[in-house]
Every structure is written in structure tokens, then in C-alpha cells.
């Protein structure tokens, strides 16, 4: 096994891992604020990519305008979803929540299929596609964009959750919703915020990865599931643990696909998911939580 090969796989794994991390953080934010696993999270990723495509092609917007527009629209979809599906739920049992978010994800996917068809589409990379050499491996400029933007988002998250009132309020909800409500935090608003942030993050993730992997109406399914894996590895944290989880997952997947077999690439993530759920459901870094076991 050549070192260069391993380096190559690791580097590309890091960038996919960053995407998984972003999606995973999206899952964690909603979960921590509401206790819901939003199965539709992957669809925001899909919407990010496809909406950017339309903004570029139909609206003829330049890239720097197309991105905010598509993030905004994805966020609106997230809000609609929360308002229509989550909030009015009469019996929020786990089964019902699982079913409704699955239903929502299927619906969004189906509507996307209506609008954009079943083909895969390409989005131009942000700053060209001249390969850059690092050690004996090559990466594309888009990889750097992914890592940079992910870093920015993580820093922003840290700032938001730890240094702003609304961010701290959301964390309060995560620890104890009842207590948060009692001290005057509008829990329902926090739930809404959590969907807004997660939808936006998901959309950004979809946009930055689309130039590399193309986008289509059904990319959300696998990306969403793998993002969930990252969140589980990180113990459902919305911070550094999930980032590590995502990066780890991306690298392991990439190495596995490259060194063992590419057909089983997707299976690798799910085997890791099962192992974590069986052996350490609180994540690699979390404390034991009796609710999950």
C-alpha cells in the first residue's frame, strides 16, 4: 500500500467527512432542541444543491447571489415543514415522529423529482478545477472550499451557541425543556430556530459538495443517513464531537472504499453505525444516557 494512495484517500475522505459533519450537526441541533430525529435532514442538503442550480440557470444569478438565495429558500422549506408537520402533531410518540419525518422527506423528495426530474446535474466549482498537489496526492480547489466553509460554520456555531442569548436559550432547551420554559424561554420558538439553522446548514453542505459529486433529487437519502451516523458517533453533540465523528466516518469510508472494495462503500458507514449503536450508543465521546439504551 503506497503512502501516496493512503494520503489521497484520507484527504478526499476528510472533505466528504466535513460534509457528513455539517449534516450531522444539523441532526444534532434539531434533536437537542426537540428530541426529534429529523429524517428529512438529508433533503435540505439536496435542496441546497438543486436550488443553486436553478438560481444559476433559470434566474441567471451569479454564484455569490445564487448561494444565499438557495439557502434562504431551503430554510423556508424547513420552516414550512416544522409548522405543518411537526408543530400540529397531536400524539408526538416516537413512532409518529419517525413516520412523519419520513413522510416529509419522501414528500420533499417527490416534489423535487417533479421539479428537477431524475437526472443528475452539475454545478460549477467555486473557483475552477485545477488540481493542487499536496504531498504525493492531489486535491481540487473545491475540497479546500469545503474544509474552509465547514470551519467557518463550526466557528460561527460555537459563537452562536455560547455567546448569544438565543443560542444559549437553545442549549438550555436541550438540557431541560421544562426548566427552560419556566424561566421564560419560548420553547416553540427555539424549536423553530433549530429547524431554521439545521435547514440552512444542510443546504450549505449540499451546495459546497455539489460541484464534486453532482446533485439529483435523491442525493439526500444517503447523505442524510451518513450525516446521522456522524451525529451518532459524536454523541448527538452540535460541536466538535460530531465534527470528529464526521471526519472519522469520511476517512474510514474513503479508505475502505479505496483499499478494500468500492461496492461496499455505503455499507461501511452503516456497519460503523450499527457497531456504535450496539457498543456505545452515547457516541465515542458522550456520557451514558439511559434513554437510548
Amino acid at each position: 500500500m503506497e503512502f501516496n494512495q493512503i494520503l489521497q484517500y484520507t484527504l478526499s475522505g476528510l472533505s466528504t467527512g466535513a460534509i457528513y459533519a455539517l449534516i450531522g450537526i444539523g441532526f444534532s441541533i434539531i434533536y437537542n432542541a426537540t428530541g426529534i430525529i429529523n429524517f428529512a435532514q438529508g433533503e435540505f442538503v439536496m435542496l441546497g444543491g438543486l436550488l443553486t442550480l436553478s438560481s444559476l440557470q433559470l434566474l441567471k444569478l451569479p454564484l455569490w447571489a445564487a448561494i444565499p438565495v438557495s439557502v434562504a429558500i431551503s430554510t423556508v422549506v424547513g420552516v414550512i415543514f416544522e409548522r405543518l408537520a411537526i408543530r400540529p402533531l397531536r400524539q408526538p410518540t416516537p413512532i409518529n415522529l419517525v413516520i412523519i419525518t419520513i413522510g416529509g422527506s419522501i414528500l420533499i423528495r417527490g416534489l423535487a423529482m417533479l421539479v428537477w426530474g431524475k437526472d443528475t446535474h452539475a454545478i460549477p466549482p467555486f473557483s475552477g478545477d485545477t488540481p493542487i498537489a499536496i504531498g504525493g496526492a492531489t486535491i481540487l480547489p473545491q475540497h479546500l472550499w469545503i474544509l474552509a466553509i465547514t470551519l467557518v460554520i463550526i466557528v460561527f456555531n460555537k459563537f452562536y451557541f455560547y455567546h448569544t442569548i438565543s443560542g444559549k436559550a437553545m442549549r438550555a432547551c436541550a438540557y431541560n425543556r421544562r426548566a427552560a420554559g419556566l424561566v421564560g424561554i419560548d420553547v416553540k420558538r427555539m424549536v423553530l430556530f433549530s429547524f431554521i439553522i439545521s435547514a440552512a446548514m444542510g443546504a450549505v453542505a449540499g451546495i459546497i459538495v455539489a460541484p464534486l459529486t453532482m446533485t439529483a433529487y435523491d442525493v439526500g437519502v444517503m447523505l442524510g443517513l451518513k450525516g446521522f451516523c456522524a451525529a451518532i458517533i459524536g454523541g448527538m453533540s452540535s460541536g466538535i464531537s460530531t465534527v470528529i465523528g464526521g471526519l472519522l466516518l469520511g476517512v474510514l469510508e474513503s479508505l475502505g472504499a479505496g483499499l478494500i472494495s468500492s461496492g461496499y462503500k455505503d455499507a461501511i458507514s452503516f456497519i460503523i453505525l450499527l457497531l456504535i449503536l450496539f457498543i456505545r450508543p452515547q457516541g465515542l465521546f458522550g456520557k451514558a444516557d439511559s434513554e437510548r439504551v
Partner: protein
Amino acid sequence: MKKDLLLFSAFTLLVAAAPQLFKGGYLMNVLVFVGINTMLAVALNLLLGYAGQISLGHAGFFGLGAYLSGIMTTTYSIGPWLAMPIAAIVVGIIACLIGFPVLKLKGHYLAMATLGLGIIIFIVFNETVDLTGGPSGLSGIPNLKIAGVTFDSDVKNYYLIWFFTLAVMLFSLNLANSRVGRALRAVHDSEIAAQVLGVNARILKVQVFTLSAIISSIAGSLYAHTMTFISPASFGFNFSIELLTMVVIGGLGSIFGSFLGAALLTLLPEFLRAVNDYDIIIYGALLMVMVMFMPGGLVRGIPALYRKIFGQRKGTGNA
């Protein structure tokens, strides 16, 4: 229970008479699938509706039964009636082994774990090309034969499949109204209270999970011999969701509800041929609408709606 048995007898008569009513034709073919889907929906309902455990990977057990039977009867020339129980036992053992760790999880985590499982199984079907034929599928699976009669026509398959489906329904009805069925429902309503009364929730959940998997496997074997051709596409995540939709729409915890859900979701695409691509939107919308407005499923929602519109009637309304 008496009411259930009465309903079941009436239902059996209906099933037996249907071919006469519909005089063969294309509908027969669809009704064969309604039978298979009903079997699968009932199996999932035992786990989801009665025991309250979410599984999003049931298509995997269905597929395992189909492929095991398919491979045994083609590559290894094992007789179909021998292959089917062997497949069921293998699937049962797998389910039992996986069930112990998986069923320790609750709610969303269980849903995700079963989802992951189903996808892993699907990937294995696709990748083990030498065994399964990969994405192009496995063909040449023999039809089933009993005493010289080969089940190779829609009408014959209809009777074969529905024999098994009715047996599974009766089996499940018996179970639901029995000591074990009550223990299951108790675990669903309050696991801690059930344990305090001596119910070993852990073992019970694994038992139901295994039973559910075995029934799905048998449905898979039957499917393989009826279709004579199978491919991984029928056993993926989308079908697991379809099954979930059938159970939810029909009514969790209702055996007849599972038939309703299966019938609806199998027949609907046939009548909506024109909107075939849109079926995924319809499933999504149906799931959401049902959970929001009729969480008890059609089996409870329709009588309730009737009562609302036409005023109160006596009766407890529970199937």
C-alpha cells in the same frame, strides 16, 4: 376475539370467492401481490403495532427469504418446499442474533439501526454478483408444485399465496388475543410495568422480531417462486417504507388494518397508472396526513369519522 373470528371467516369466504367474481384477468395478478404484501404488513404490524418496536428494514428479511430460496433452488437444485423452511430458519437465526443487541435500543435509535441493517442487506444483494446475479437479478427460479400441480398461473398462485396469507392472519389473531399477545401489548404500553409483573420484555421483543422476520422470509420465498425472477431493487429502503406506510395507514395493532393498508397501497398504483412516477409523493403525503389526522389508521379512523358525521352509535369499535 369472537368478533375477530367472525370477521376472519367472512374474509376467508371473500378471498375464496374473489377469482369467481373477477373472472381471472389482470386483477388476479395484482391480488397475488396484495396477498404477499398483506403477509408482510401483518408481520411488521406484530412488531410495530403490537410490540411497539420500529423497524425500517423489513424489506431486508423479505429479500433474504427470496434470495435464499432463489439461490438454493437454482444454483443448488434444492427442492423449493425444502428450500423455503431452510431459508426461514436461517433468517430466523439471523434475526434472533441481531435482535438481541438491536432491540436494546429504543425509538429513533432502533429505527436507524434497522434502517442501516436493511441497507446493508440490500448492498450485499447488489454486490455478491456471483451468488445473486447482482443488480441484473436472479432468474429461472422454479414454480412451486404440489402433487403434480404446478403453480404457474395467476389464479393458481392467488390460491397458493392467499392460503399462506390467511394462515398468517389467523396465526396473528390467535397470538394477539392470547397470553403472549397481551404481554406484548403490555410491553408496548408500559415496559416497566410489564417487567414488574414478570414479563421478560427483552426476550419477548426478540421473539416477536424473529417471528416477524420468519414470516417475511416465507413471504419472500413465495414471492421468488411466483415471480421466477427477483432483483435487489424490490428489497430496498423504498419498499421498507412502503410496508411501514401500509401498516400505519391500515392501523397499528390491527390485523385487518394491515390487509386494508396493503390492499390500498398495492391497488392504488394500478389505478393511478398515469401518475406512476408520482407514487412516491403520494406515499409521503399519505404518511403525513394519516399520522396527523388519523393516527389510529383507517380501521379506527373510518368508523370514528362515520360516527362523527352520522351521530353516535352503540359499540366499542375495535378490531
